[in-house]
């Protein structure tokens, strides 16, 4: 995607939100970008990595988000503009450093882009990163469309340098993963004072202790620096009062003022069109959402008595506006607020034009123009009765299906009610029936092994169930390593199973420290998981999960050992990896003469239980059948069939 850098100034491109963000950083002369993969943020680093050589920038996939932020901070300290990217959960991981960084301040512009996922479209939570701006007291910007995604990121670097502190630009799934038209700015003429004047990075550190630009970069003396930080925020507010990212559209004296931000401004706009209510409702779209500019907000609050605040998940904007309204009370009078606190807007899940239109129609007393009721009813009926739900499942050829098959079987055979503590990755799907409902705890990155480490110490209180944790190879480096070390050191009884599929599968196969390739696809020294585990002092076994029998026996054996930590590495490359994708190792077929279908005591084990999408049930012939379009040719199902009716033939 070289157009990210080659698209000419003034040209109009169809860009994904994440591409727009990346372009904005390039236009700002950003030199260092670091992040950890996480939907919906991953394409920002991916796109930057692709153009890194041409753009003369450094890009890395860091081991985790905290390290990513530290790497980016170093660039800022050395006078280079830097960008740090992560999904919302990543901000939690990075938050300890984030607090201290906000306290010490930055030098060259540094921007943090967290991508939130309202509605948890591809997350296991709908956590919020906006909190963190208020929590650590740094400015927060929220782009409302694709053009703003680019422009705001670019401006955020300027703001960061104006106040010498980190600036957060928060995106959401419906912006990051949506696309729209963006007019390009100039990359070559962008201003980056530090980099241009010095033309090289240098870390000044021997200046006066209180000199943020030349002394040591630390957050002490704390109250002095904290006070400085507040001055910086005041300065940010001044910029915000006149920022072009805050816009008002609508009549001078609207019946209702809607205050919104982010992609919700597009939804609200659409809703107002649907209701034909643009002449009745004012729309204050805020791009600078923390700290709020009080004069600007006061000016608009004065326009009317009824205010609706539209935002996703927590009432963050709502609370900020209400705080200001309370302070401005004598000046603006008493207002009626609609929002999340009075349930006008739902507090969970993502919003859309319909939800907002329905909220508006309630307040304004407008009937919504519906689709003919008979149509809705008929379509609903037909879909409800006839469109079978599409549950998520492991891909055809996915090593995880095979791994969980064997682990689950071993735990069941072992018969002591052993369980698996899950972790974050594609293998989180093992909490669903298509992963044999194998996971019994599932929290944050790396926490499977941490929780297991705790379970493994409960023997003295009578817990004698076998404890297993799973984690992916990328997750291992991200945050499971400390948990492993903890478990080994405390002789916790557990079996840690590392599902090593050679990449960060869930987010699109980004490299991690265990691979001999970096974000740019260049050669990099691989950190050997096996050696790390061994050095930590745990026993380690390596097995191919496609060998079901051996894997099961190995797990059974490890479950027997109640003397500390055993690690099993189940190594098999992801079916979607560039090495494997589209290439079948085996041509699979079902011998209809051997498969006895419904008459078999196996009760359709292959399709009913193993349930790989590549192996379907032929309802007419009543036997199983390979769907050659979907089958990935991994060959595993051949060892599921008790009658050996599934054949595999090596593809030449």
């Amino acid at each position: 995607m070289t157009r990210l850098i080659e698209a000419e100034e003034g040209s109009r491109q169809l860009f994904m939100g994440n591409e727009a963000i990346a372009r904005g950083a390039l236009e700002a002369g950003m030199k260092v970008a670091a992040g950890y993969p996480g939907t919906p943020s991953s394409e920002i680093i991916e796109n930057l990595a692709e153009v890194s050589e041409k753009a003369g920038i450094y890009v890395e996939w860091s081991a985790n988000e905290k390290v990513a932020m530290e790497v980016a901070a170093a660039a800022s300290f050395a006078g280079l503009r830097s960008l740090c990217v992560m999904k919302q959960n990543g901000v939690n991981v990075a938050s300890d450093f984030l607090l201290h960084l906000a306290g010490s301040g930055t030098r060259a512009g540094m921007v943090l882009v967290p991508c939130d996922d309202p509605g948890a479209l591809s997350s296991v939570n709908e956590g919020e990163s906006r909190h963190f701006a208020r929590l650590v007291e740094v400015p927060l910007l929220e782009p409302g469309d694709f053009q703003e995604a680019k422009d705001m990121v670019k401006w955020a670097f300027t703001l960061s340098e104006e106040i010498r502190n980190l600036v957060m630009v928060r995106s959401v799934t419906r912006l990051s993963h949506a696309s729209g038209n963006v007019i390009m700015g100039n990359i070559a003429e962008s201003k980056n004072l530090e980099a241009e004047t010095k033309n090289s990075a240098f870390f000044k550190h021997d200046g006066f202790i209180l000199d943020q630009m030349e002394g040591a970069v630390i957050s002490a003396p704390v109250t002095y620096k904290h006070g400085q930080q507040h001055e910086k925020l005041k300065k940010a507010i001044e910029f915000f009062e006149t920022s072009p990212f805050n816009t008002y559209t609508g009549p001078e004296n609207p019946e209702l003022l809607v205050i919104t931000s982010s992609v919700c401004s597009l939804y609200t706009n659409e809703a107002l069109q649907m209701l034909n209510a643009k002449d009745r409702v004012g729309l204050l779209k805020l791009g600078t959402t923390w700290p709020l500019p009080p004069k600007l907000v006061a000016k608009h609050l004065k326009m009317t008595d009824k205010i609706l605040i539209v935002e996703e998940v927590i009432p963050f904007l709502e609370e900020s506006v209400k705080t200001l309204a309370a302070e401005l009370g004598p000046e603006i009078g008493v207002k009626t607020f609609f929002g999340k606190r009075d349930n006008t807007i739902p507090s969970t899940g993502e919003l859309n034009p319909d939800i907002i239109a329905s909220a508006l129609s309630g307040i304004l007393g407008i009937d919504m123009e519906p689709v003919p009721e008979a149509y809705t009813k008929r379509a609903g009926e037909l879909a409800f009765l006839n469109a079978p739900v599409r549950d998520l499942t492991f891909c055809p050829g996915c090593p995880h299906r095979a791994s969980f098959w064997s682990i689950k079987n071993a735990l069941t055979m072992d018969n002591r009610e052993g369980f698996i503590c899950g972790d974050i990755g594609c293998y989180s799907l093992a909490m669903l029936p298509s992963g044999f409902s194998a996971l019994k705890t599932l929290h944050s990155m790396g926490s499977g092994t941490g929780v297991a480490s705790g379970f493994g110490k409960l023997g003295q209180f009578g817990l004698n169930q076998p404890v297993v944790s799973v984690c992916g190879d990328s997750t291992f480096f991200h945050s499971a390593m400390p948990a492993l070390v903890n478990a080994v050191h405390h002789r916790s009884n557990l079996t840690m199973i590392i599902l090593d599929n050679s990449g960060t599968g869930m987010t699109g196969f980004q490299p991690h420290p265990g691979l001999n390739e970096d974000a740019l696809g260049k050669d990099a020294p691989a950190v050997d998981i096996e050696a790390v585990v061994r050095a930590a002092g745990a026993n380690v076994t390596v097995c191919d999960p496609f060998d079901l029998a051996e894997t099961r026996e190995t797990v059974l054996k490890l479950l027997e050992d109640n003397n500390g930590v055993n690690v099993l590495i189940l190594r098999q490359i992801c079916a979607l990896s560039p090495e494997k994708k589209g290439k079948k190792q085996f041509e699979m077929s079902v011998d209809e003469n051997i498969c006895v279908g419904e008459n078999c005591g196996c009760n359709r084990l292959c399709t009913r239980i193993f349930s790989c999408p590549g192996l379907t049930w032929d309802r007419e012939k009543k036997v199983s059948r390979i769907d050659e379009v979907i089958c990935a040719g991994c060959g595993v199902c051949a060892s599921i069939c008790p009658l050996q009716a599934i054949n595999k033939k090596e593809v030449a």
Partner: protein
Amino acid sequence: MQVFGSKELLEDVINRDLCIGCGACVGRCPYFKSYKGKTAMLFECDLSEGRCFAHCPKVEVDLDSLSTTFFQKAYDGNPLGSYMEILGAKAGDKIAKAEFQNGGSVSALIALALETGLIDAAVLTDREGIIPTPRLVTNAQEVFECASSKYMAAPTLSALNNGIEQGFERMGVVATPCQATAVAKIRTNPVKRANFIDPVNLVIGLFCTWALDTRQMLSFLSDQPDMADDIRSADIRSMDIPPPPEEVMVIETGTKKTKIPLKEIRPMICESCQFCPDMTAEWSDISVGAFEGKPGWNTLVIRTKKGKNLVEEAVEKGYLQVEKIPEESIKHLAGAALNKKRNSFIKNVEKGLVNTGEKEGRSAIRLSDDVLKKITAQKENAV
């Protein structure tokens, strides 16, 4: 009997901890597996009828129906079951001295049956380390490798299922009472398969008062400081409970003999054994056990014509020597068997597992109410 599926088996047997892990359900389908004495159901199976349920010795055992099939009469509750003759026996001169529990009669009879072609394979219980494992054998040498008692619940019948898959049609089975019950059920073709062939031609039952939980026993022995090494290296030679009054189990490993008081062993008895009414493996051709008061000898309960013929041939060919057994010993044996029967039926009734009507659901055991009353009304015998 009415046949149900694995869901009901799970409810009635596995979830109630009545499963003794005999292996009858293992190896006929991919769902049941044995591991360390326990049977596990790997995944849910929604077939409404299955051999897993039909063959299980812990659910819907109709004693009248079995008795009618195998002994041509209604079940009468005799403590020792139906039999023709009781003898003392030990392996004869033709049999090389092996590690026998008592008299070596079982090995001798099975070896002979294999040699004469009475059976085409034998279903036995071998041992891997301390863990009993099923074994399907076809020659005498292998029979002797499996000699000696295991004292632990074993999935022996998975070897029978394995033998059926392999096409053996006249197998001999050496079975504990629960296993012999399962074999009897298997032989009645409860799922009414067309082309059914009785895969068994000889059942030699083993006396049994209880079996130990394999995993508990394993962890108990591993915790014994002086045994842990031998357990880890799986170097177990034999296990024996010498006759009273010693009250110990003797475990012989490669390095030593260790005596463990029975009072430490008893807590590891499988829950299921308390519900078992059968001490002498009544559903067999010949049942074999210790000859109390005569070390090195066995008691033989000969139940069928086939069993009697085999014993006679064994004596004739020097595989076995027999002698009369004192009436007092038989009385003593019957007393012990009655105690087990009586106590277990009382427990079964308490738990609502006997002769339940349609409303209450499935039974573990069915027999006539009169016989049930007769058994439970008897006084406990001083043994």
